[in-house]
């Protein structure tokens, strides 16, 4: 079973507010639907049958039809009342969403690219910042403010278990405050049509207890280790002398480009290609050789690398835990 991506299984404060409003609204709507359907079926049952030759009742339009008038007026008034109730509930929920206390919030910056998520953990201390891709980790019970930007076209970040969606718009910066209540793994997906691979632009949200989160956080701050094994060493050299480093960054090496995902801890991630395939050595090799096989139209080019070189690269990337 994939990580959850469901609206009505809230695991965060914001999603819980919305879920609450959902059930209120659905209850009111269901009531209205049933009432109108009953009135309608009653009308259809009650009225006598006719055919084309039945003389039309024109006179009825000249009478006051006071009963119909009263019923219709009453129904319209009731509808208006119901709508006001829904409006009040909606605005109340909106206020609740805006009032999430944000003291001590963690700041995460997410930049949407065609078709992957660039993630930055910001900190006033530059030594405590790092970046990752296609995954975010947050602690349980602590507010998080996600800042949203786009590098190319409009995307939309949607983590249904935690909150509704928020767009990433070129030239605009938006924020999305969230707070997770339950540890777990949730799936997010781009919700604004963004081109060929809009279907495969996923992001995993791992909600961890605070100590686990701190451990993950500290590990992310580490630069990539120097490779020890021969194959990995060769992979390291290939990475830094080939075209990998034209797009990717690995902290602790000279690779510092930002066109593609930061690979400093690639081996610790679960998927490749923004949720497209599982991160296994075989998939990694196949991905490097031809990413378009998995994501037609992807911006990463195919690489004709000798088998041995490919294995070395995969071995090196496998050390980036």
């Amino acid at each position: 079973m994939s990580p959850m991506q469901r609206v009505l299984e809230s695991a965060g404060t914001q999603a819980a507010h919305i879920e609450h409003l959902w059930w209120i609204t659905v209850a009111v709507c269901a009531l209205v639907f049933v009432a109108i359907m009953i009135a309608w079926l009653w009308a259809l049952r009650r009225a006598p049958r006719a055919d084309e030759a039945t003389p039309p009742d024109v006179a009825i339009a000249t009478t006051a039809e006071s009963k119909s008038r009263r019923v219709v007026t009453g129904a319209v008034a009731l509808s208006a009342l119901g709508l006001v109730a829904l409006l009040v509930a909606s605005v109340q929920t909106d206020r609740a969403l805006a009032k999430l206390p944000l003291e001590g919030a963690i700041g995460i910056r997410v930049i949407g690219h065609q078709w992957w998520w660039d993630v930055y953990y910001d900190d006033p201390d530059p030594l405590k910042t790092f970046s990752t891709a296609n995954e975010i980790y947050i602690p349980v019970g602590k507010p998080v403010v996600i800042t949203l930007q786009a590098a190319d076209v409009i995307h939309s970040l949607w983590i249904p278990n935690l909150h509704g969606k928020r767009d990433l718009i070129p030239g605009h910066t938006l924020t999305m405050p969230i707070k997770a209540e339950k540890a777990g793994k949730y799936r997010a997906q781009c919700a604004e049509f963004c081109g060929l691979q809009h279907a495969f632009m996923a992001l995993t949200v791992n909600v961890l207890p605070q100590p686990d989160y701190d451990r993950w956080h500290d590990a992310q701050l580490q630069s990539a280790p120097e490779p020890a094994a021969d194959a990995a060493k060769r992979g390291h050299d290939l990475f830094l002398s080939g075209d990998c480093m034209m797009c990717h960054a690995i902290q602790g090496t000279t690779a510092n480009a930002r066109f593609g995902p930061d690979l400093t801890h690639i081996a610790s991630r679960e998927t490749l290609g923004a949720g497209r395939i599982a991160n296994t050595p075989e998939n990694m090799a196949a991905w490097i050789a031809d990413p378009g096989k998995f994501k037609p139209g992807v911006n990463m080019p195919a690489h004709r690398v000798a088998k041995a070189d490919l294995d070395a690269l995969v071995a090196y990337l496998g050390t980036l835990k």
Partner: protein
Amino acid sequence: MKNDDANVLRMQGAPTARDAALLEETWRDPPGLAGWFSAVNHKSIGKRFIVSAFGFFVFAGLLAAAIRMQLARPDNHLIGPDLYNQIFTTHGTMMMFIFAVPVMQAMAVYLVPLMIGARSTAFPRMTAYSYWVYLCGGLMIVAVFILRIGPDAGWFNYVPLSGPDYGSGKRNDFWAQLITFTEIPGLLISIDIITTVVKLRSPGMTLARIPLFVWAMLVTAFMIIFAMPAVMLASTMLIMDRLVATHFFNPAEGGDALLWQHLFWFFGHPEVYFIFIPGLGFMSAIIATFSRRPIFGYPAMVMALVATAFLSFGLWVHHMFATDVPQLGKAFFTAMSMMIAIPTATQIFCWIATMATGKLNFRAPFLFVLGFFFILLIGGLTGLILGSVPLDLQVHDTYFVVAHLHYVLIGGAVFPLFGAWYYWFPKITGRMMSETLGKWNFWLFFIGFNVAFWPMHHLGLHGMPRRVYTYPAEMGWGTLNLISTIGAVTIALSVLLFIVNVVRSLRGGAPAGDNPWGASSLEWATTSPPPSCNFVAPHVVGTREPLWEPSRDPGAPRYVTGLALNVRECLTTSAVDARPDHRYTFPTPTIWPFVSAIATTIMFIASIFNPWAVVWGSVLIAIPLVAWFWPTKEETRKHLALEKRP
């Protein structure tokens, strides 16, 4: 009949067979192939318009079937992402711009003059020109799709995805020009309909006696005039960004990506309502006839239509709740989105009251209308969910919205439209449609529709976003998608049955007679199909239901007499009270609207490849326009003759 100085023959007293023959000779379209392209009769144009729109509906429907085939199972490789994006873009664009809005205008072009007792639309040549431009635009988008260079950024065509940096080739230029193609006929026909309704009503048909369908089309026409310029502006700015490197939507040069969304939805939301309001008009016409009584609450119905039109211009931001529009502003748009339910609810309640106090005749047109109640009600209620900011943040851009919009548009417009086709087919063709096939058509459509679209609500809540070309199996969306595809196949079958019914009925349907349903409005007062002049003797109207209730003033004249028989002369009436105003001579058939439309098409398509085409293309269009408006000696002579003797 009496001879005037310049051989102008006039009708005197009750209409005779001789009058009918002369009028037919005067008003019919010229024979032959050139004559076919010269036709300006609103019924010829209306029929072609309806058939073309239905053809585009079938094409766009087949694209929907392709979408459902691709999504029927997870990780499907039937259609790749590039083709899939073209398919859903073309499906949405054609359904909204080439089918839904034009088909309603097409129905109006055919029906409105008949329903108000007029001989023609107000600007017959312009009607013809609009149709040809529309047809060329529709064929262009079909052609580019078949050539696999169709637009691929969605029917909403958001920048920057559709802009110069990310929209490849000429795909989105075709989209932008398609919008212009539909704007021209959309705006021209609106002007045509407004003028027709305001100036050409039968004497005595005051504003308070206009059939509700005509009210609906009048309101729709005004809405189009106010809404379409916004999208025209947007599509022009987009094509300028793409072709001549302006930067309206480029944030790096001071443009703004959100500007597009505001302009698009300022048009786009009213658009939903000007697809829906004609549907409401069909509803009122059909419900009255099959409940054997006038619609309850006529003034409330009219005011509801007008209120819907006004409110619909205040909803557009509810398509943008996930952007950075300020919080307070969003609450305003939530309130507006909820408020617009009131006029629709009012109409639904009035119809229920009408049916409850009427006598019901359950024929095929009425069944389609009953389908509206169930489907549109669900669509309307899910609309309230989408209007609420917090709920919208969750379900926006998911399959929940796909379900909602199809419940609203198919339930609110397509079901009434099919009802309308069953209802007016006898008038248009003179033959009845098969009732049995009609009922099968209805039930298959109704069941298929709900099977296809109900599961999408759940898919949206289970996290399935819109516009994805496939999805991984582990998301668990496979079963519901398969069910949805089965529903889509059922809908396709029902539409096929409709086509079979039309073809069979055209050949061997029972003759309809003038008024097969026992209806009340003026179009049923003439023969089926109507003569070229619509009515041999134009009616004088004294009540709201002229065929059910003759004028309450027994001394009032029943017909307009004294109009010319061998010249296209009509009586115009005053805007509010429909008092006779003056006589007016209508233009004759000519090939020039067709030629002008071709010239317009050449300019639009050429401008995609070379911006200078706008300059030389204007000259190209001006030439047939000059020929179009050039007065002939014969016409001038007749005008002068008519002026001499009042």
